[in-house]
């Protein structure tokens, strides 16, 4: 019996592969057993074990702090000096952890490739891509010592990973390329020596959705073409289900569940895996239906039919390097009171500039903005103060948007102080009410952001926006820096608040699965223009524009692309499992 079976919960499961009998003759490509990693006394990975066969793919899934990246780095022996790893990591039967650095180094970059999380920080910023690529090529024992031949090899790989202008990329510095291009470069460098194993640590979490899909497709293609085994680290269950043969679910450094993707996906055995599955927006489009229905009833009762945000013909140009660049081009939309409108688009589509215009941080060149009945005149402070009372912002990244030296109490109270609202006692009362409405305990009042988790911080940010009792809240990718389960909590808080208080949300996101869950109407932006808008249900069912279809196609479906490798799964069975999860 395969060793991984001792780790799965105690019920029988079909043998994982018809080839298993053959494969036990050779040691598996990667065999991890009893792996523990500790920082001082704090153990972050406990007794982790799994196997990866040649040419197969395995996904390590978990939230921040689950230890998934730590496992990846332990395998690559890239842990920081203060971390201690014990247990067994065998690569092609050879013990890796105890190997001297001198003997392990030849494995790195030749037999084991690494694709990091954030391509923007994974290349030396002061050297050209070419210099770094040649350096990697020079380490191969291909017998090629000719610089021109090496360069040709590098350019060839660049072309293979889908870079249109290999020579331009070769001559560029990292900051001159986009994140997607950099990730292609990094993948290219990782597969240059045709390694047997590729470790990809959240390879797409820093990228736009459409680019995410292309990068994942590239990895799948390379895996098949070059017969590389893939160890994929991700927090996104939908991506893992789509791309991996086997799944390992981690929580707090311990393996919760392990098995074939189809099996784990159809019937998660552990409570944690079930929760994880329930929290992935792509898999649960109707999760918040009851909350949204409640909000709709509330709207119908109060008959708040008028529009809270009216933007018409808004245009903004910037001067970049002497050229005029139209960041926002003739944008118009309306948001009805008590509803959520989503602005969707990739980086550079003009979403953020639109928000800055709404907040009066930039002055529009043309067009009109009306918020909760106030005509917006950017630059006029008194009129802007009236607008800001009605319009609050929840920023993208709660790790940088809260002053780390302020207490929660002071952070949430600040808007009241600024607008001189109420007496001291009344302010305290409102701060407490705001915290209660985002379900934060009053014990946190004296804490500072450093002592809060990401989810708690974002709730403080929401409480801070709520404390003025505004009509409109702008949500700028409010969950993109958070884990899926934390994201689900935040979304739930937001939708309950909307149902109770009749808030109007402008929700900016690139995550279409999330938009489908919580918005009523949507505008799709591209190159500063709105190319398509309407009700979410209609746009998602019948997109008119090719670009919208591309965006929709990038939502991971959770369906495995490796149909040949996984035994047939009866559709009704899978559907039943999904219903059970939702119930």
């Amino acid at each position, binding site marked *: 019996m395969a060793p991984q079976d001792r780790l799965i919960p105690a019920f029988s499961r079909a043998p994982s592969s018809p080839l298993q009998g053959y494969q036990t003759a050779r040691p598996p490509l990667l065999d991890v057993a009893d792996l523990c990693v500790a920082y001082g006394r704090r153990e972050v990975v406990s007794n982790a074990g799994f196997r990866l066969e040649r040419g197969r793919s395995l996904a390590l899934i978990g939230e921040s702090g689950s230890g998934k990246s730590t496992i990846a780095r332990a395998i690559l022996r890239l842990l920081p000096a203060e971390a201690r790893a014990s247990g067994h990591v065998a690569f092609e039967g050879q013990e890796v952890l105890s190997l001297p650095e001198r003997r392990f180094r030849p494995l790195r970059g030749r037999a084991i490739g690494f694709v990091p999380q954030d391509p923007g920080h994974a*290349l030396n910023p002061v050297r050209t891509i070419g210099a770094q690529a040649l350096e990697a090529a020079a380490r191969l024992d291909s017998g090629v010592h000719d610089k021109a031949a090496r360069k040709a090899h590098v350019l060839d790989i660049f072309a293979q990973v889908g870079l249109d202008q290999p020579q331009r990329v070769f001559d560029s510095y990292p900051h001159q390329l986009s994140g997607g291009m950099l990730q292609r470069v990094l993948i290219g460098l990782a597969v240059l020596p045709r390694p047997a194993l590729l470790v990809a640590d959240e390879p797409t979490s820093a990228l736009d959705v459409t680019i995410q899909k292309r990068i994942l497709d590239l990895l799948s293609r390379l895996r098949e073409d070059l017969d590389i085994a893939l160890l994929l680290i991700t927090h996104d269950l939908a991506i893992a289900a789509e791309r991996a043969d086997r799944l390992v679910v981690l929580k707090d450094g311990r393996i919760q569940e392990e098995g074939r993707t189809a099996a784990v996906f159809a019937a998660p055995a552990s409570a944690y895996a079930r929760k994880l599955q329930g929290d992935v927006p792509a898999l649960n489009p109707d999760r918040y239906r009851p909350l949204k229905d409640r909000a709709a009833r509330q709207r119908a009762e109060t008959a708040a039919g008028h529009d809270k945000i009216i933007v018409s013909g808004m245009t903004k140009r910037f001067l970049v390097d002497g050229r005029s660049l139209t960041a926002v081009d003739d944008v118009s939309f309306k948001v009805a009171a008590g509803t959520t409108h989503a602005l969707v688009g990739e980086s550079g589509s003009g979403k953020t500039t639109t928000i800055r215009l709404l907040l009066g941080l930039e002055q529009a060149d043309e067009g009109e903005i009306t918020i909760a009945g106030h005509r917006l005149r950017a630059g006029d402070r008194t009129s802007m103060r009236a607008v800001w009372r009605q319009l609050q912002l929840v920023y993208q990244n709660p790790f940088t948007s809260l002053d780390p030296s302020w207490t929660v109490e002071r952070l949430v109270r600040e808007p009241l102080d600024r607008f001189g609202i109420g007496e001291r006692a009344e302010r305290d009362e409102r701060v407490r009410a705001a915290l209660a409405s985002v379900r934060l305990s009053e014990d946190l009042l004296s804490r500072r952001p450093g002592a809060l988790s990401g989810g708690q911080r974002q709730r403080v940010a929401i409480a801070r926006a709520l404390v003025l009792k505004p009509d409109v809240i702008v949500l700028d990718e409010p969950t993109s820096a958070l884990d899926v389960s934390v994201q689900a909590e935040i979304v739930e808080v937001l939708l309950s608040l909307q149902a109770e208080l009749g808030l109007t949300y402008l929700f900016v996101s690139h995550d279409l699965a999330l938009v489908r869950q919580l918005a009523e109407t949507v505008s799709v932006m591209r190159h500063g223009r709105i190319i398509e808008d309407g009700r979410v249900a209609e746009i998602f069912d019948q997109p008119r524009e090719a670009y919208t279809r591309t965006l929709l196609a990038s939502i991971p479906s959770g369906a495995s692309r490796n149909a040949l490798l996984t035994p047939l799964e009866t559709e009704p069975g899978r559907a039943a499992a999904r219903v059970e999860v939702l119930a």
Partner: protein
Amino acid sequence: MRHAYLSFAGKRLAQAAVVILLAYVFTFIVVSILPGDPVTNVLRNPQNGFSEEEIQSIIAAQGLDRPVLVQLWSSLSSFLTGDLGLSLRSSRPVTTMIAEVLPSTLTLATSALTVALTLAVLIAYGTQFLPKRWGQGLLRGFPSLFLSVPSFVIGLVLIHVFGFKLGLFRVIEPDSAWATFFAAVALGIPVSARIAEVLIANLDQEARQEYAAVARSRGLGQAALFFRHLVKPSLLPVVTVVALSFGELLGDSLITEAVFGRNGVGSLVQRSVATQDLPVLQAVVSLAAAVFVLVNLLADLVYPLLDPRVTLIGPARQSPTKAVETAAPGAAA
């Protein structure tokens, strides 16, 4: 890119020239408002034994009887043509006097800088890769130790050990190669401490960057990682420190030259201050200002070569979309 760099370099060069001129004018004004009149202090000093005719001819030659502004104007215009006037004491051209001592000081300063850089890089490399049990911690203490010992103490110890005990060089030949080397060591050690401190701090920071781990994942060894990846990005602040230290080197060379008995700019400054030889003083101070400005100009010109992200002409206007959207780190696991 090349064109942008050249126009950037041209602008900085013009700025540097203006700063040097201003420094000259400033020195002139400071010297002229200082208490003590050179005529009474130097020329009429009975020790110097000038006769009244000689004094009158020197005053006429130096133009000391004219109004200050006129003196400034003529002094400035001859400065621009490279004429630094005549020494009050010896009546020799100041240019010649400086030319005599400058090579010695420049040799000392550049050797000292070489010593400082070499030492700093060695210490920094050690702190990155020397195993803990081989004294990495001890090595990290070196910079503070170096900073706390004055260079003249190091100089005296070096002379005692290598000059007298080991006989590597003779104290009466201060310009011999070994003597110059040890003078440079004495002068360079405190400077190396400062460079090493900044270099270590930056290397520590760069070594923690993701790209260092990724480079290691491609199979790079320690030395290759250090020299090809970590040093260059760590150098930016080091360049600033070196530029600032160079001025300090010139100042400290005064003491080191005295300790080692070298005849350099330092000893010229000492003599001209002691005898209130104003033209020489004016020239040396302006020279120091010029060196300072030129070294910092050099640093400015090196920055863009070290880091392609340095913008050449002022802060570039970023499009706000880019600025905000790139600030989103992914959920770190």
